[in-house]
C-alpha cells in the first residue's frame, strides 16, 4: 500500500469533506477532518486500509485560533507485525463547546485514551460509555472547578 496512493484515494473519495491529506515525512500521513465527517472517514480508513490499531489519542489546545484539535494516530497491525505507516486524523473542535463523536465504536482501543483526553482537556466524546475521573484526584472538581490541566490557560504555579 503506497502512501501517495492513499492520499490520492482519500482525496478522490472525500474531496471537499476533508482537508488535503498531507505526507509529512516517510510513513506519516496527516488528514484534517471536521467532526461531522469524522465517523465516515474513520470507517472508510478502517475498512479500506485495515488500520485496526489506534496508537494514541491526543488533544492540542490552540487558544489563539479558538480551537482544540483531537489527534488520532492509527496504524495497521497484522499477525506479522506493525505496518510502518501511521495515519494521523486531526479533528478541530470548537473551544467553547468542545464536543466530538467518540471513535470507540470503530476502535475499541481508544477507550482509555479518549477518557484521558476528556479529563485533561475537557473535550466531550459523544457516545463514549464511561467518561469518569482517571488520572486526577477525586476532589479535583471542588478544588479547580471547570479547569483542565493541559489547556493553555491553566498555569502552573511557577509560570
Amino acid at each position, binding site marked *: 500500500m503506497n502512501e501517495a496512493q492513499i492520499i490520492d484515494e482519500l482525496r478522490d473519495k472525500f474531496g471537499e469533506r476533508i482537508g488535503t491529506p498531507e505526507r509529512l515525512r516517510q510513513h506519516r500521513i496527516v488528514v484534517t477532518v471536521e467532526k461531522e465527517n469524522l465517523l465516515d472517514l474513520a470507517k472508510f480508513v478502517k475498512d479500506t486500509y485495515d488500520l485496526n490499531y489506534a496508537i*494514541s489519542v*491526543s488533544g492540542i489546545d490552540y487558544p489563539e485560533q479558538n480551537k482544540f484539535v483531537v489527534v488520532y494516530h492509527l496504524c495497521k497491525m497484522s*499477525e506479522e507485525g506493525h505496518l510502518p505507516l501511521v495515519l494521523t486524523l486531526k479533528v478541530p473542535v470548537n473551544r467553547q463547546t468542545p464536543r466530538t463523536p467518540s471513535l470507540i465504536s470503530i476502535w475499541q*482501543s481508544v477507550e482509555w485514551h479518549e477518557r484521558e483526553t476528556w479529563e485533561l482537556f475537557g473535550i466531550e466524546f459523544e457516545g463514549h460509555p464511561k467518561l469518569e475521573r482517571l488520572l*486526577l484526584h477525586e476532589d479535583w472538581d471542588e478544588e479547580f472547578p471547570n479547569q483542565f*490541566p493541559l489547556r493553555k490557560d*491553566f498555569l502552573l504555579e511557577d509560570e
Partner: protein
Amino acid sequence: MSSMYFSVGPQHPGSGHFRMKITLQGDIILNAEPDPGFVHRSVEKIAETREYLQNVPLIERQCLSDVSSVTLAYAMGIEELLGIEVPPRAQYIRVIMCELSRIMSHLYWLAILGIFVGHSTMFMWGFGDRDILITETAEKIAGARVSYSYIIPGGVRYDLPDGIKEHTMKTLDYFQGRLKEYDAIFFSNPIFKRRTKGVGVLSRSEAIRLGVTGPTLRGSGVRGDIRKDAPYAAYDELDFEIPVYSEGDSYSRSLVRFREMKISSSIIRQAFENLPEGDFKVKTRKKVPEGEVFSRVEAARGELACYLISDGTRKPYRLKMSTPSFRNLPGFSLMKGSMLADMPPIYMSLDYWPLETDR
C-alpha cells in the same frame, strides 16, 4: 450468591501505586477495574514549561526501570524536527543502552513476578543480579545507576569509557549462566506452570482489538515489534529475532520476556562487535523549528510513541507520550472469570508500571 467488593491497592503488597477494584463472588472475580492516577504528576504539562534539553530528565522519570527508550523516543522526535543525522557510533551506543534498559526492566519484572506467585528466591535473585550486573554496567557507561539521562537530542552525553566492552562481555557471560538457573528454578517449575498456563488467555484478534502492545501482544501470537517493523537507531543493521508465543496466556507472556532477555544480550554483543568509530554526538540548536513529529520506539513494555509539537520556540508546544502501560490497561479485563489466586500472575504478566500510565 452475594458478591464482595474490595480494592486491591494502593496500600497492598500486590498492587504498586495503583488500585484494582475487584468484585468477588466465591473465589471467582466477577469484575476487575483498574484505577490509575495515584502517581499522576502531569509530566506533559510540566514539559511545556521547560526547554527541550531540560525535559530529558523529566520524562525519563515516568518509567524508572526502562529510562533509555523513553528518552530515545523524545530525542528522535527532536532530531527529526531539526533535520539532523545522528552519527552511527551514537546510534550503536543508543542500542546498547536501550537493550541494557530492557534487561533491567525485565529482571525487575521477573523478580516481582516471582514474589507475586510466592517464590521469594526468584525475587532475590532477580533484584540481586539486576543491581550487581546490569545497573553496574549502566553506571560505568552513563555515570548513574538508574536515571542517567544519557540519551539526549543529537546523540549521547559521553563516549563509552575504556574497557567497557570487556566488562560488559564478562557480565553478559555470567548473565547467560544465570538465565539457565532462572529457567531451572522458576520457568520449569511445575507449580509455576500450573499457576500461569491457561490463565488470563488473550486471543490474537482480541489483543489487536484491545490495542495491547509489547510482550503482551507477542504472547498472543502477533509478531509486533517496532525494532523490526519500523527500525530506528541501529536496529536494522543488527541480527535478532522476535520471540512470539501463540497461547496468549500468562505463561507465554512471561516466556516472551524471559527469551527477550537472552536476545537483548546477544544484541548488546553484536552492537559492541560492530561499534563504529566516530563522533558520539552532534551539535543541536536550542530552538526547534515549527512542526510536528510522531516517533515510535519499542520500550521494554511495548511500543512507546512520542507526539511532539513545536511552535519554533525553545520549549515544546505539546508533548504527548502514549506509553505501553497505558495501552495495556484494557488487559485487566482478563481477570474477569478467573480465580482470586490468578490475580497476581495476570497482573504481572501485563508488566504494568503505574508511573508510566499516570505520567
